[in-house]
């Protein structure tokens, strides 16, 4: 067989879009920092995935494959690289130093995130901002599930130490 485009794969991609749109959007937003560019990256990424779905190889999940494409589109957008429809990303550098789109809303957390090592920071964004499942993070980062869990645990410990005074003060005030 040269190329197959099972009709059900188009439906799967549409379902993924419908069910996980916010997650894709947030992931792209963490890369571009701009809502319009993020939306465009998601639309473009899904369009590319839909058109090239016959090239999806089932050695990973369809979800991970589409996330990778959207991520590539967002990275291209941020770098000002003109997009090409040719070629789908087999592997991408996922440690892209994500940033909060609205750092002024939480300067303390922004500073704490910026202090994290790049890989930890990327995974925290994927997990808590884009709401990616751990397995998908592992797939995108090309690592094992256990490594993702361990990395996130380290990141949370670092963030907890840094944010603890504020969090404790806030919680005390809430319970008073």
């Amino acid at each position, binding site marked *: 067989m*040269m*190329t197959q485009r099972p009709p059900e794969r188009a439906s799967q991609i549409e379902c993924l*879009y419908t069910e996980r749109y916010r997650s894709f959007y947030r992931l792209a937003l963490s890369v571009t920092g701009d809502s*319009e560019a993020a939306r465009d990256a998601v639309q473009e990424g*899904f369009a*590319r995935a839909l058109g090239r779905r016959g090239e999806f190889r089932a050695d990973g999940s369809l979800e991970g494959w589409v996330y990778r494409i959207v991520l590539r589109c967002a990275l291209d957008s941020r770098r000002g690289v003109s997009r090409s429809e040719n070629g789908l990303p087999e592997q991408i550098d996922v440690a892209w130093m994500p940033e909060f789109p*609205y750092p002024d809303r939480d300067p303390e957390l922004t500073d704490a995130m910026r202090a994290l090592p790049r890989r930890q920071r990327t995974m925290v964004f994927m997990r808590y901002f884009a709401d990616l499942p751990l397995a998908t993070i592992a797939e995108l980062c090309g690592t094992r599930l256990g490594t993702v869990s361990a990395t996130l645990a380290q990141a949370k410990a670092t*963030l*907890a130490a840094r944010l603890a005074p504020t*969090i404790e003060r806030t919680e005390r005030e809430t319970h008073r």
Partner: protein
Amino acid sequence: MTIDMDRVLLERFAAQDDLGGAPDFADVRRRARRHQHRRLGVPRLGRWNFAPRRRLVVVLLACATSLAAAGAAASLALHWRISALHWGSNAPRHTVIVSTPTAPVTIPALPAEYGDAATRMSVFDSSTPAATLPTAMQAFAPHWLDHGAPYGQLELSRARLLTSQRGWQVYGIPTTHGLVCWAVTNGSSTGGQCLAHLPADAPAHPSVSQDSATAPVIVAGIAADGVKSIDATTNHGTLCSAVVENNGFLCIAAPATKAPGATGLSAITADSVTGFRIWLRNGDELRIEP
């Protein structure tokens, strides 16, 4: 105090969200179609499920779409539009008047290398005899080109009868720019398109047409060397199979057909066709879905 960092992070990250970006999958589909057109340089799937007069409009618009899709890198701009269709009593059945526009439409032209579809069809080698075009084709053929589109000129001396069946014929004519213009006709109804490329991942260009709901469904098109046959498929199975002859193919499905798995006769229309299977001579299979 034990801090639930999962909860804290979820809450504080949520504050970074915005309301931008409402989902719109129709836009995704449109973009995917544009990408496909750009890659293939062809209309995705031609359907002529229109009355003959409207069909010509569709054909010409499809040609314009094809040009626009293929011409992203071109510098040449083309100004034309279809102004009216004329059907005088003494006029040939298919006559289209294309005039200089009052409000020009800019359509990107083909890239410098133009098309290569003709080079992928050995039927245009000198060893195959040229065809004498019937009256319907003679009347129809100029309409592909007479509006000044940068298809090049029709090489009428290299016109070929590709295949025929039950009163229908498929003709192909290369152009000086390497495109192939093809049409299917039964003498009274004619429709066709010009095609720039027949790439390896889309080596055939099938179209479906039907004059009316009770008329047969005509599946016809052109194919590159190496394509053995084309199946038109519906949700119920294969509607018809066409063996490629001289780089052309044609199959005619009756309007009422017992679909595979169905208990009775079903009305078959052009819209029943959901895709195509392209069988290559090396045994590989390629699918085209609308």
